[in-house]
C-alpha cells in the first residue's frame, strides 16, 4: 500500500493553508511561457503593445502597428491577441480591430498570416507574430488573398491599389465599403 494515509490529513491542512486566503487563480503553463515572451519583447519602433485589463492579465492584449513605409504609411492598425492556457501548443487568436483595405486581412478582421495557423510552431513567440503582422503592411501579398477584391487590384493595378488604400485610411469608400479613418 502506498504511504497514502499517514499524510493525507496533513496535506489537507496544507492545501487549506496555501489557499486559505482568497482563492487564487491557477497559473497555467501557457501563462508562464507568455510571461517570458512578453518580458523579452523587442518590438520595432513602429509597433507598440498595451494591456487593456491591467498589468496582470497577459493573456489578452493589443498591438498597435504604425507602418513607417509602404502603402500603409501614416495609418494606425490595432490587433487584439487572445492567448490560450495551452499556449504555445496553440497559437494566439489574432484579429485586426481596425477595418482595413488589405489583401490579407478581411473586413471582419481575420488575418491570413501562415504562422497564426498552419505554420505555427511552439518555438515561435509573440515577437515573431508581431513582426509578421508588421510585415503584412510593408509587403501586402496578393497571392494569399482574404480580401479578394483588394488582392486583385494590388496584382493588376498597384497605382489604383495605392489610392484605394489612401482613401480607406482617410475614412472613405472603396467600392461599396465604407472605412473608418485610421490616420
Amino acid at each position, binding site marked *: 500500500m502506498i*504511504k497514502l494515509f499517514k499524510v493525507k490529513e496533513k496535506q489537507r491542512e496544507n492545501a*487549506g*493553508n496555501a489557499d486559505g486566503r482568497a482563492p487564487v487563480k491557477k497559473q497555467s503553463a501557457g501563462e508562464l511561457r507568455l*510571461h517570458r515572451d512578453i518580458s523579452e519583447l523587442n*518590438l520595432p519602433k513602429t509597433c507598440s503593445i498595451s494591456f487593456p485589463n491591467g498589468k496582470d492579465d497577459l493573456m489578452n492584449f493589443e498591438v498597435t502597428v504604425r507602418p513607417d513605409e509602404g502603402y500603409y504609411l501614416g495609418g494606425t492598425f490595432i490587433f487584439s491577441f487572445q492567448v490560450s492556457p495551452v499556449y504555445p501548443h496553440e497559437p494566439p487568436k489574432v484579429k485586426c480591430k481596425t477595418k482595413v483595405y488589405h489583401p490579407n486581412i478581411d473586413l471582419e478582421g481575420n488575418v491570413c498570416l501562415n504562422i497564426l495557423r*498552419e505554420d505555427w510552431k511552439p518555438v515561435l513567440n509573440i515577437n515573431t507574430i508581431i513582426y509578421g503582422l508588421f510585415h503584412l503592411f510593408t509587403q501586402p501579398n496578393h497571392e494569399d*488573398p482574404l480580401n479578394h477584391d483588394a488582392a486583385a487590384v494590388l496584382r493588376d493595378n498597384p497605382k489604383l491599389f495605392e489610392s484605394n488604400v489612401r482613401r480607406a485610411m482617410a475614412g472613405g469608400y472603396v467600392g461599396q465599403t465604407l472605412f473608418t479613418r485610421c490616420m
Partner: protein
Amino acid sequence: MAEAASTPSKSRDLDKLLLRPGNLVDPNFEPGTELRLALQEQVKVLVVGAGGLGCELLKDLALSGFKNLEVIDMDRIEVTNLNRQFLFRLEDVGKPKAEVAAKRVMERVKGVNIVPHFCRIEEKDNEFYSDFHIIALGLDSIEARSYINAVACSFLEYDSDDNPREETATPMVDGGTEGFKGHARVIKPGFTPCFECTIWLFPPQVKFPLCTLAETPRNAPHCIEYAHLIKWNEVHGGKAFDPDNSDHMKWVYDEAVKRAELFGIPGVTYSLTQGVVKNIIPAIASTNAIISAACALETLKIVSGCSKTLSNYLTYNGVEGLHTKVTEFVRDKDCLVCGPGVLVELDTTVTLQKFIDMLEEHPKLLMSKASIRYRGKNLYMQAPPVLEEMTRSNLSLPLYDLMDKVPKDILHATGTINKDNKKSSGLRKLRVVFKGIDGVTDMDMAGGA
C-alpha cells in the same frame, strides 16, 4: 444465506491480488484483508470526466472494489452520447452526466458511494482536489488535463535537497482515446513525467490557411471551416459562434453546403460539419473500454501496491489488428509544473530590487534582468516599457509583503541566464522560503483554515 454466500465470491478475483504475496509487488505491499478493507473504506478516488471514458472508469473502479468515488463533469447528456456512454438512456438526455452516471453505477454495484459534481473543474478549489488519494482522468482536451495536472503537482513538496517527498505526490492515471487509438499513462508527480513534461506528445491541431478557405477550397472540411471561421463573422458580426448551439451548427452546415456547391465539392454532411467544427474524431466504444480497463487496473496497482505499475505510457492502436506498446518517458528536469525549482532563502526585509539582484549571483540561477511573476501577478516586468512602468514601484517594497506575507511559496522568474559565458533566455521556477517565521506559519494556518 444467498447473501452470505455471495459476499466472498464478489471479491474473489480481487483477493488473488490483494491477499497473496508476489514477486512483482511494490516494496510497501502488505497483503491481507486489512488492505482490502482500507481500499474499500478509506481510499477516495476522483474520476474527472463522465463521458465515454468516464462511464467506463466509474464502472470499472466500482467493480474493482473501490467504494468511495467522486466524479466531476460539466456536460449534460446528448443523444449522440448514447451509443457508447452506456450508463445513459434516452430519457436522460439533457441531464447532467456526472449525476446520472453516479446514480446508475450505484444502482448496479452494491455498497459503492459515488458523489457527483456537475460543474467545471476550475470551480473546485485545491482543498477539494487534495482530498483524493488518486485521480483518474477521462478527458478529451489538453487544456483540462493541463489544469488537473497543475493542481495535482501543486501538492508535491520537495525537501531541501530537491528530492520529491513521496507522501505528498497525488498520483494520476490518464486515459485518452481517438477513434481506434488510445493511451493510458501513470503520472506520479516528482517521479514520472507530468503532463506538462511531455506536452509535445500531442500533435498540433490541423489548421487550414485562411486564404485557402477564402479563395481555393479543395475539400469538404475547407467549405465547413469557411462557413465557421469567415462567413459566420461576416453575417453575424460580433455574435460569438457557439458549437453547442444546434441552430448555430445548422447555419454553418447550410452555408458549407452552398459553398461546396459553388466549387463543386462533394461530401459536406451535418455530422462532418460537427466533426470539423468541434474537432471531433468518432469515438469507438471498444477503445474506451480497453483504455479505461488499463487505467482502472493501474489505479488499483498504485493504491494497493499489488503489482508494479505501468512505466509509464501505454499506447494502443486498433486500426489494423492490434498494437500496444509501453514507452518510458523521462521527466523534464526543468519542468515548471512538476520540477523542484530553485530554492531561495530570504529575510523578510529583502526588497524586490534586492531579490532581483540576488538572482544574478545565485549559483544555480545566474539570472540577470529578471522579470518576476507571482500567482498570476506581475511583480516586476523588465519589458515592454508600458509594463515596466506599471510595476516599477514594487521594486522598493519587501518581497515578503508582495507575496502577501506567506512563509513560503512558488514564484517564477524570466531573464537572461549567463552560463559558461553564454547568454540564453530562461524561465525558472523558484521556491522562496522566508527565514525565521515558522511559528507565524502555524498560527496563520490555524486562522486561515
